[in-house]
C-alpha cells in the first residue's frame, strides 16, 4: 500500500512538468500507475538510503502535530458520532443502549429542529449578504483612503476587536425596554427582543455590526490583487466606475470574495453567542447550535444533543464542500495550463 503511494509520489514531480525530457523517471511513474508490481519495485529502487531516512524524519516531525490533531478534533468527532447512535440521557443513565439511527430519525422529524434550522439559514444568508455589501463598501473606502489611512482602518476594525459576548450584552441592554437607548429610540413601549421577527432582526444586526469589519479586511486583501493598470485600461476602454467594479474588480478579486464568503458562512451557520445572550433562543429564535446546547448541556440528553452536533458538522462540511467546488471552477489564474 505505502509502496504504491511512494512510487506515485516519485513520478509526480517529473511527469507533468517535462513529459518527455527525462526518459528515466517517466516510464517508472507510468508503470507505477498501470502495473502494480513493476511500479512498486522501481519506486522502491529509486529511493536511496538518504531519501529513506529523510522520509522517516519527515514522518517523525509530523507525528506530534498529527497526534494532537487526532486527539483534539478527531476523537471528539468520533465520540459524538458514537454518542449519537445511543439512547443516552444522563437523567436516566441506566437506560443507555445502542439504538442505531433512531436519534437521527427523531431529530429530523422534530419541528424544533427544522425551525431552528430555518432560523439559522435565514440569519446566515441575510447577515452574510448584508456583510458582503457593507464589507465591500468599507473595503473600497479603506483601500482608497489616502489621508489618515491607519486611523480609518483601525476604527473600522473596532467592532471586530470586541468579545462577541460583551458586544451581545451591550446590544441586549440597548434594546431592553425603558432603559435601553435603542429601544427608547426605535420601539418605545414595546419589547423588541420578545417578538420573533424583531428579535431575529436585532440578532442579525448584531452579527452584521460585529463581523462586517472582518469581511472588509478579507475583501481589502482581494482589492490589493487588482492592478491599477487594469482599472485604468478599463476606463480607457470606456467603462464607467460601476462597470469597472462589476466587470473588472469583482471578477479579478473573485477568489478573495469566495474565501471571505466561505469563512463568514461557516461562522454564521454556527451562530451561538449573540442568540444566547439576546434571547436565549426564546420565541423560536434559537439556532441549531443553541438547540444542540439546550439538549446536550441543559437537558443532559447526550444522545439527541450529539445527533444534532453531528448534523451541524455535516451541514458545515457541506457548505465548505460546495464552496471549494466553486473555487475549483471559478478561480481565475488557477488553471494549470497557465503554468506552462
Amino acid at each position: 500500500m505505502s509502496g504504491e503511494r511512494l512510487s506515485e509520489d516519485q513520478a509526480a514531480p517529473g511527469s507533468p512538468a517535462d513529459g518527455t525530457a527525462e526518459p528515466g523517471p517517466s516510464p517508472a511513474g507510468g508503470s507505477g500507475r498501470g502495473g502494480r508490481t513493476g511500479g512498486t519495485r522501481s519506486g522502491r529502487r529509486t529511493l536511496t538510503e538518504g531519501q529513506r531516512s529523510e522520509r522517516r524524519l519527515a514522518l517523525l516531525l509530523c507525528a506530534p502535530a498529527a497526534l494532537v490533531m487526532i486527539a483534539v478534533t478527531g476523537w471528539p468527532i468520533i465520540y459524538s458520532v458514537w454518542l449519537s447512535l445511543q439512547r443516552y440521557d444522563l437523567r436516566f443513565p441506566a437506560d443507555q443502549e445502542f439504538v442505531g439511527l433512531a436519534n437521527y430519525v427523531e431529530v429530523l422529524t422534530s419541528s424544533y429542529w427544522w425551525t431552528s434550522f430555518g432560523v439559522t439559514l435565514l440569519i446566515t444568508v441575510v447577515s452574510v449578504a448584508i456583510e458582503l455589501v457593507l464589507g465591500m463598501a468599507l473595503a473600497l473606502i479603506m483601500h482608497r483612503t489616502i489621508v489618515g489611512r491607519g486611523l480609518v482602518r483601525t476604527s473600522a476594525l473596532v467592532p471586530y476587536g470586541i468579545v462577541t459576548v460583551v458586544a451581545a450584552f451591550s446590544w441586549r441592554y440597548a434594546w431592553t425596554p425603558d432603559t435601553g437607548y435603542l429601544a427608547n429610540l426605535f420601539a418605545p413601549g414595546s419589547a423588541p427582543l420578545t417578538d420573533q421577527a424583531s428579535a431575529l432582526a436585532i440578532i442579525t444586526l448584531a452579527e452584521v455590526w460585529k463581523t462586517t469589519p472582518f469581511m472588509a479586511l478579507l475583501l481589502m486583501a482581494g482589492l490589493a490583487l487588482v492592478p491599477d493598470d487594469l482599472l485604468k485600461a478599463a476606463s480607457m476602454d470606456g467603462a464607467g466606475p460601476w462597470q469597472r467594479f462589476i466587470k473588472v474588480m469583482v471578477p479579478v478579486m473573485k477568489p478573495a470574495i469566495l474565501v471571505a464568503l466561505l469563512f463568514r458562512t461557516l461562522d454564521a451557520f454556527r451562530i451561538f453567542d449573540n442568540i444566547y445572550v439576546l434571547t436565549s433562543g426564546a420565541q423560536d429564535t434559537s439556532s441549531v447550535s443553541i438547540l444542540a446546547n439546550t439538549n446536550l448541556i441543559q437537558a443532559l440528553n447526550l444522545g439527541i444533543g450529539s445527533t444534532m452536533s453531528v448534523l451541524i458538522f455535516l451541514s458545515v462540511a457541506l457548505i465548505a464542500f460546495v464552496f471549494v467546488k466553486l473555487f475549483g471552477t471559478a478561480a481565475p489564474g488557477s488553471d494549470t495550463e497557465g503554468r506552462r
Partner: protein
Amino acid sequence: MSDIVLDRVTKRYPDGALAVQEVNIEIADGEFIILVGPSGCGKSTTLNMIAGLEDITSGELRIDGTVVNDRAPKDRDIAMVFQSYALYPHLSVRENMAFPLRLAKLDTATIDRKVNEAARILDLTQHLDRRPSNLSGGQRQRVAMGRAIVRNPKAFLMDEPLSNLDAKLRVQMRTSVSRLQKQLGTTTVYVTHDQTEAMTLGDRVVVMRGGVVQQIGAPQHLYEHPANLFVAGFIGSPAMNFVPAAVADGGLATALGEIRLTDRLRRAMERADAPREVILGIRPEHFEDASLVDDRMRAEGDVFTGLVDVVESMGSDKYVYYALDEKARSAELEELAADSGSSDVPASEGQLVTRLSAVSPVREGDHHEVWFDLGKVQLFDPSTGRNLTLEA
C-alpha cells in the same frame, strides 16, 4: 483620427511634485509622435493627461479643436496600451479584445467581425480562446494592441509597450508597431525611454527632461541639430563625445589639442555671444583613421593623436576608444551624466569614442592618429547647455 494639441500643459501632483511643466506639443492627424527621456522625466504623466487618467493642473488639451480637459477617459475616444499590457485575466483573448466594443454596446455580429479582423492583422486568430495567462509576452503584447485597434479610436497612446519584451522580440515588435501604425494611419503618441526606439519609430520625437520639453523634431533633425547638450547626449548611440574647450586666440584649447576655429564655428560663436569656456561635441562617426583620409578631407578637419584604449570590431566598422587626460568636466556635464544614468551621456571620464572604417589598422595600446570633421563639430554653452552652433 484626429489632431491633439497640448497648450502649456502643466501637472503638479497633490504631494507638490511638479511632474510636467508648460508642455506645448501640436500633434497632427495621423502622426506618430514619440515622447522620450530618462526615467522620471514626466513622459507617463503627459500621456496619462492626454488619456484623461490624470487631471491637468493648468493649460489646455484639445482634441480635434475641442478642449477636453474635463472629459472622462471614456468620452475621449482614445485607446491606450500599457507597459504591463493590463489584460483582463478573467477573460479570453477574444473577450479581452471585445471588451471595449461590448461597452460601446455594438451588436454581436459587428463585434465578432471586428475582433476577427484585428486578430487576423495581429496574427492572433489561433489564440482567440485562450486566457492571457497562457500566452507568451509577445502574444500578450499583441492582444493589448488588438484591444486598442478594434475600436478604431481617434488616437493610440502607448506607454513603453515593448519594455517588457526581450531584446530580440522588441526589435521585431518595433517594426510591426511601425507598420501597423502606417497601415491604420491613426494618430499615435508613444512613450519610451529608449532613444533607439524613438529614432526608429517616430515621425517626430519630443525629448523631455525633468518635466520640460527640450526639443521637438524629426529624428534626423534632433540627431544633426540638437538644441542643447542634453538632447545631443541623449540621442545617438554610442553617444556624442563632449570635451571641454577654452577659447584661445584663433583656436580652441581642448584635450584633443589645439583646434582650429573654422569660419562656421567663429561665426556661430560671434552670433551666439559665446563664453570663453565652451563644450565641444562631436559624434563618433565623424572621426576617421587619419591614414585613410585624403588631402581634401584633411583640409576640412583636424587630427588628434591619442593612446588607443580599446578596439571593438563590429565587422562593418570599428569602435575605437581613446584615453583622454581630461580633468575639468563642467558641472553641466556631471549633472547630465547623473540625469540620464551616465550610459546615455558619454564623456565618461576621459574617454573618446570614435567609429572608424573596418580597414583601419589600429591596435590597442598604439598611439594612433585620428582625423575628425570640423564641419560636424558642435559647441555648447557649459552653463546653459545651449547649442551655440545651431543655425537660427
